[in-house]
Structures are given as structure tokens and as C-alpha cells.
């Protein structure tokens, strides 16, 4: 308690700070979701399960290599990128000529398979993964942020910026966006559209893997951990404007802040219920989300 900041305000600020770290993690999940959405027009219901898989990959790696999470992060992302390639071959390639509902159902089926497989291998009990820097708390005046939360915040910021640079500033990113925007023209211009779509999957799963590692430390990982995340990502992308990258990040942050504050004053159950109620209300008032994507970019 300090004189400069009333206690009430300090609590609110602390809740918002906690929400920010979680929001950054949600944002990466939502970014992966939008990447695949834009590349294929399909909803990837397994995006949350990718996070779960990344979490278990981190747990497994940490058992073999007792090094800080920061060292494991690139390894997990690499492994998950490889998995993303496999996933695109299973969930997208065979279904690309069919109506989008089939691709969506395929991701539901594969996500379920992943959950059950991890349940069989690791059991339903929560497992703790590595933390980026180890325990400890950093204090900013009256506010405290755990090392894990700070790690999540910094890592997500770096990954988010890297991705923005990759998509916005590199030739690879331009090609990726071109293939997503107009696959027919992109193909006619000689772009390897199929490979670019596979690359989108790899990028999306690598991001999910990173989130998995980041969350596995402070929040543990269970086989069904992805279910809550996919709902959050779905909501973030919907309120952010279907298909908009910036909107997805904004939506994810908004959700996390909202949940963190409501959960702080009431309970996490009420927070989830209120979140969903708020989303329905929002859809009633602003059907295209908070930051609507231009017409024609919606799936």
C-alpha cells in the first residue's frame, strides 16, 4: 500500500497486469488461428490442442534437458512446426476441394485424437513444464509480476513482433499474404500456393507450441487444456473482426483483461459466463466485430 495509489486502484492495476500476460498468450493462439483461417478459409478447431501438445513437448524435453525454458523454446517451436506440416497434410490437403465444414470436422477429429492420445500417454493429472527464467517476482512499486508472467509477456511480445515483421516485411510474408488473399491469382503468378499454405500451418503450430511451453510452467498442462484456449481464440478472432490479425490480438487482450478483472472481483466461473454473455451482446450490436475486416475477407 502506498500513498500515491489508493488500494482499490492498486488492486485493479494488479489484475490488469496479470491479465496482460495471459492476454499475450491468448493473442499468440488467436494469431495462429487467423493465419490458418486466412490461408485456407478453414477454422482450425485443434489450435488449442496444438498448445496442449506444445506444453507436453516442453514437459518431455525438460525431463531430458534440464535447462531453462528459454533454451527449450526454439526446440519446442521447431518440433511443433514439423508437426504443423504433418497436420496440414492430414487436416487440410485431403479436404481442400470439399466444403469448409469437412476441414473443420477433420480438425475436431484430430484434436480429439490428440487429447485422448496424450491422456493415454501422460494421464489426466496436470504436469508442470519449465519456466523461462525460474521463480521470483519483480515489483513495480505496489504492483508485482511473477517471473513466469513477465517471461510470457516478453516472449509473446518478441514472437508477435517477429511474426509481424515476417508477414509484413519479408518476401516470404508477402507471398504468404498473396496466397491467402487470392489463391487462384497467386497460383497463376507461379507462387507455390500449397507450400505456402503448409508454411502457414507450420507457423501457426510453432506459435501454439511456444504458448504451450510458456503456459506449461505457471499454469500446468492437462490433455484437455486446449479446449478453453480454442474458445478464447475463437472469441478473440470473432470480436476482433474475422480474419484480421491486429483485431485478433486486440480481441485476445480484451478478453484476458476482462476475465482477469471479473475473476478478481467475483470468480472465474462468473468471469467465463460474463465473457460469453458480453460476446453475445457485442454480436447483437456489432455483428462484424469490433474491428471489422473489409468486406469479402470474411470466410
Amino acid at each position, binding site marked *: 500500500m502506498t500513498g500515491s495509489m489508493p488500494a482499490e486502484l492498486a488492486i485493479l492495476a494488479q489484475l490488469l497486469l496479470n491479465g496482460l500476460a495471459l492476454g499475450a498468450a491468448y493473442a499468440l493462439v488467436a494469431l495462429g488461428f487467423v493465419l490458418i483461417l486466412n490461408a485456407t478459409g478453414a477454422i482450425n478447431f485443434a489450435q488449442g490442442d496444438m498448445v496442449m501438445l506444445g506444453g507436453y513437448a516442453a514437459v518431455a524435453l525438460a525431463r531430458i534437458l534440464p535447462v531453462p525454458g528459454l533454451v527449450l523454446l526454439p526446440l519446442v517451436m521447431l518440433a511443433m512446426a514439423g508437426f504443423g506440416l504433418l497436420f496440414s497434410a492430414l487436416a487440410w490437403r*485431403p479436404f481442400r476441394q470439399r466444403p469448409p465444414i469437412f476441414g473443420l*470436422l477433420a480438425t475436431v477429429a484430430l484434436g480429439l485424437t490428440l*487429447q485422448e492420445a496424450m491422456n493415454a500417454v501422460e494421464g489426466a493429472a496436470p504436469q508442470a513444464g519449465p519456466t523461462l527464467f525460474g521463480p521470483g517476482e519483480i515489483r513495480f512499486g505496489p504492483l508485482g509480476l511473477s517471473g513466469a508472467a513477465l517471461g510470457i509477456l516478453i516472449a509473446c511480445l518478441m514472437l508477435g513482433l517477429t511474426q509481424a515483421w515476417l508477414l509484413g516485411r519479408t518476401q516470404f510474408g508477402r507471398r504468404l499474404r498473396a496466397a491467402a488473399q487470392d489463391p487462384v491469382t497467386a497460383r497463376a503468378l507461379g507462387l507455390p500456393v500449397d507450400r505456402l499454405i503448409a508454411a502457414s500451418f507450420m507457423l501457426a503450430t510453432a506459435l501454439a507450441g511456444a504458448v504451450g511451453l510458456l503456459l506449461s510452467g505457471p499454469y500446468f498442462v492437462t490433455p484437455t487444456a486446449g479446449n478453453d484456449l480454442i474458445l478464447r481464440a475463437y472469441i478473440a478472432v470473432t470480436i476482433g473482426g474475422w480474419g484480421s490479425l491486429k483485431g485478433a490480438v486486440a480481441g485476445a487482450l480484451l478478453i484476458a483483461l476482462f476475465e482477469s478483472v471479473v475473476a478478481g472481483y467475483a470468480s472465474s466461473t462468473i468471469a467465463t*459466463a460474463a465473457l460469453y454473455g458480453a460476446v453475445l451482446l457485442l*454480436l*447483437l450490436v456489432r*455483428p462484424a466485430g469490433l474491428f471489422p475486416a473489409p468486406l469479402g475477407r470474411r470466410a
Partner: protein
Amino acid sequence: MIRPAPLIGLAICGWLLAVLLLGSGYEQRLMALAAAAALMAIGYQLVFGQAGALSLAQGACFAIGAYGAGILSRLGWPLWAELPAAVLAPAALAALAHVPVRRLDGHFFALATLGFAVLVRLVAVDAQGLTGGANGLIGVPTFGRGPGAMLVGWGVVGLAAALALWLKRGDPDLARASGLDPSRIRARGFVLAAGFAGAGGALQAHVLGLVSPDVADFQVMVGCLAMVVIGGRGSVVGAVLGALLIGHLPEWLRPLGASYRIAYGLGLFACLLVAPAGMIGTLETVWPSRRALGATAPAPPAPVGRGLRLEGLEKSYGGIAVLRGVALEIRPGEIVGLIGPNGSGKTTLVNLISGLDRPDRGTIRLGDRPLDRLPPERIALAGVARSFQSPAPPDRMSPLDLVTAALAARSGCAGFGAAAALQPLHRQARGLLRRSPSSDIARALALDPAILLLDEPAAGLDADARARLGLLLRALADEGRGLLVVEHDMGFLMGLADRVAVLLDGRIVRVGTAAEVRADPVVRAAYLGTAAC
């Protein structure tokens, strides 16, 4: 005319009878539980199978029915009051949940229903006073031992199946083609489905004698999805079959222990991969092929022998002449290629023939019949069908819907509810879709045209698909149809077209075999040279 669905229905009845007469109490109880799942799956066909909307709330509605029956019966409500309440409660909540998304796209609907399911689960687990929380509700009255529960359960399934078949008689595919509001169809399906699921949940509560919070797990929803996809989307019998298979899966895979659920996921995926139409749908596509050969092959393509003759066609847009007197004949059994540089008027010509635009001057005749003053739909029914360069099908109409609608239009039953025999149309439509490289060409073929106009059919196809397209076009011509193929790519027309017409600045400057046209110096200079082929 025995079709697979009724046959499977009979087989299911046989299976049920055998279990009822010979099975153990445990097997009968398993069957009664499968009946509860079947009710949920039958209902799901009305929203997912029919209205084509991905609802993720069906499991939650099942849970509401189960909790409703559990809570009310423990309060002492008699069965006759408690069961309708267990059906109405999820239906009413579903109606409420649909309001905010009623005008929105499919993915908003999926999200809204997913959120609905999350809320139901939260209430089930956290509202201890109402639902018993993690302990659930015990002491729900049961329908007696195995045979009683099984009889009641499958009796209700029989009624529900009949009701669902009756509800399905006015098919939304045609309704959509006739301009009815798809969002109302979705809302109706969603609310009805919720009622069916509620009945299923209530049945399960009374068979088990308890309600556990597991009933609100997302697994129930995934199970329902699996039943419908594996059984056959849109088919009532398929839903029942799926429910029976999924219901018995843990029993059959008992050696695998708890990990039998991996088989769920993999089975669902494999089914999507190899048999996306599900067991019933796949059976129906395989089944009639043998009979259809006998039944439909002798029926000749009716319009054989009518050629299309264009004379003096002129068209200008705002003073710019696009066509300046085009004359062309497409004879039955002939493939005519139409080439020309960009802006030479190829698509305009196709638009004039198909009636999307009117010629300023000139005539278009099919056989003896003048077409140039008919509206597009009459021209299509008269026997001139076209495909589009970039088809823009109406929202939410699947390729199957479109082709079925075209088939229905041709057989003259395009009114809503007038189509009693939709299954054969669906079957025929699936056949056409298999045969055609694109759904738009299948739609055009559904009209059984004498003349088929194809606007750049090979655009965007790889070499393999092009070869298949070529074979299809040749086969169509051999059936006596005349084909006009607009193409940029000379290579595709070489060896395919009997004659190639070159359109240049609104006039046909040359007609001849592909080789002749290719060798023509005027054509080379104007077109082939720039197209570098």
C-alpha cells in the same frame, strides 16, 4: 425399389428384437442408452444434416434434458409433466441463444452454440444447489429393468424418427433454391434439434437413475457429431445407426481400456477422409449404380438432334460494339471451340445465348425454336445450359444443393414441399458431381442440355484434371449434345474441338479444325502470337 436406408432400418429392428428377446440385462441397458443417444443424433440431423449449420450445443441440450428430468422428477413431478418440460426447456433456451446470431454467418453460429455449451457446463458443475455439482443427482426413478427401459427408449426413438422424417419432407435445399430465408430454416432446425436432444437426455437420466456432470462434457457433443458423420449426414436411419455403433464402441473395444476413445477420433477422421457421406450416404451412392444402369441408361438424352444456330448477332454497350454480326452453328454431337483475345466478346456471346443479356440484333435458335427473347431460366429448361467462369453460388448452398435444385427444376418440382422423392435426386446429383470436374459443370449437366456452353472450363485445372475434363466433354458430345467451349488455352482445344471458331473484334474471323486455325496467318498475328501457345 428397395433402397439401403429402409434395409438398414429393418436390420436395426432385427438387432433390437434379438437383444430384447435373447440379450442379457446389461445388453438391454446398453441398448436403452443407445436409444437416448439416437434421439440426440436424430435431432442433430435437423440442424447439422439438413440446415447445414454446425451447432455445438446439441450435447448441452442433451444435458439440459437430463438435468431437467432429474430435477423435476426429484421434486415429485409425474412423468407426463416432467418429460415435456425436459423437451421444452432446451428448446426454449436454444431459441433464446439463437436470437443474437440469427442473421449472422455460420462461424458466428458455431461460436454462439459453443459458448452456450460452455455456460451449460458451468451451471452443471458450479450450481451445486440446482444440479448437485460434481456429485450430480441420484435417485432418479427408472423405467424398470433392461427390457422395460429398452422398450420405452426405442418406442420413443421410433416416434422421433417418424417425426423427423415428417419434418424433413419439405427440404431446405429446395426451399433455399426457391428463395426462402435460410436463417429461419436454421433457427427452426436448431430449436427442434434441442427438443430432440432434451428427450434423449431425459431418457438417459431415467435409464441410469442418475445424472452425472459428465453429461455436460464436450465429449457428448463430439460423440453426437461422430454419430451423424459416421452414420450419414442428413439421414434419420444414419443417425440411429451411428448412435448404435458409437454406443457400443466402448464395449467392442473393451480390450483397449480407456484409450478406446483414441479410436473415436481416428474413426471419425478416417470416415471424413474415405466416406464423407457416412455409411448411409456411401451405401446410397454405391447401391443404385448397378440398378441405375438398367433404369436410366435406356432413357435417351431427350434433346438429341437439336443444334444451335446463331445469325447476325450484334451487341453494343454504350456505343461500343462488342459483337458485330456473329454467325455460328453448333451441331448435335459436336464440340466447337471459341477462342479469341481478351475483350473480343467471348463471354458476351455466351451471355447472349444463355439469355443473361439481350442481343441488339440477330437470332438464336435451338432447332426451330427462337431463344433470343426468352428469360434465362426458360432457355435453361429449353435445353441450353451454361457454366460460369467464376460461379457465385447462393450462400449456404452446397454443390449438392445446387445440383439437386437444378435436377428438381428440370423435373418440374421446384416448389417448396413439392418434392417427396428427394433421395433419388440426391443420388443422381452425387453421380453428376462425381462425373464432373467442377460443381458448376455438374449443375449445368443436371439440366440435361442439348447444348452446353462452357466458359473457360479448364481454367485453374491441372494437367490431370484437364485430361479428365476432355474425356468428359467428348463423352457428352457422343451422347448427342452440342458443346461450345470458350477457352483461352489453345492447347486444351487442340485434339478436343471438332471445329474452332476465332472471335476477333466482335466477328468470327475463321472457323476450322484446330490445326487449320492454328496455321491461319491472320489468327496467328492477332491471337496466337500474343498468347504464345
